[in-house]
């Protein structure tokens, strides 16, 4: 008889399973909505609901208990400063699981696990083609951000150099800018 046995093993060792829950719950609080399999969603829900109840308590001890389950300090702060107050009036039931049907590959039933009253935008269901396009887009955005950072740093250096020797550095600065542009092209291709 399986009296007093709760929870799923999810084909993992204890440590692996615990870490999985921590990661799932941290992502849920960070993004307010995650997509996973139904059994994982159901387990993560149980952990997440308890964490939000701790966040409503808000004292230091509660915060330390919650910190055991959250892997990122910034997310812990969000839990206590944003999520906790948001659900002050709600007596439990902070999350919602929506079934999405089986996924390709292993036919596992997928689900969206989200915070009720969350701010998450609709999940984008990508086709393979779009997934690839998105990957390239993200890479380009990153390259642009990096280029912008470099440019900014150069401008600052330039300004500092100008302050010291107004004429001598003008040519050098122009060369630097050319280099940044070629960097950007490489990354975009």
């Amino acid at each position, binding site marked *: 008889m399986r009296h007093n046995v709760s929870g799923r093993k999810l084909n993992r060792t204890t440590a692996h399973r615990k870490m999985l829950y921590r990661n799932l719950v941290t992502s849920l609080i960070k993004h307010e909505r995650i997509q996973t399999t139904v059994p994982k969603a159901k387990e993560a829900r149980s952990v997440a609901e308890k964490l939000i109840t701790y966040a409503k308590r808000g004292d230091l001890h509660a915060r330390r208990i919650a910190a055991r389950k959250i892997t990122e300090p910034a997310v812990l702060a969000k839990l206590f400063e944003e999520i906790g107050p948001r659900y002050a009036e709600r007596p439990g039931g902070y999350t919602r699981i*929506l*079934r*999405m*049907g089986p996924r390709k590959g292993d036919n596992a039933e997928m689900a*969206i696990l989200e915070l009720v009253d969350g701010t998450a935008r*609709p*999940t*984008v*269901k*990508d*086709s393979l*083609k*779009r997934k690839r396009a998105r990957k390239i887009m993200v890479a380009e955005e990153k390259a642009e951000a990096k280029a912008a950072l470099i440019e900014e740093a150069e401008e600052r250096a330039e300004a500092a150099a100008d302050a010291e020797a107004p004429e001598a550095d003008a040519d050098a600065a122009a060369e630097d800018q050319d280099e940044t542009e070629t960097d950007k092209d490489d990354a975009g291709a």
Partner: protein
Amino acid sequence: MAVPKRKTSQARKGKRRANWRLTAPDPNKCPHCGGPRLPHRVCRECGYYGEREVMVVES
């Protein structure tokens, strides 16, 4: 120990298995787009579950 006296014949095996069949999924009509949708699931055609939920691209 009790043990079968006879080997199960091909015919007997076939008769036993004659009633094995798959059941087809039984979709409902999506209240939003009218397409087929399994009960208690997000609609794969329009991405709705009550209110807006999943955004399906490339329709």
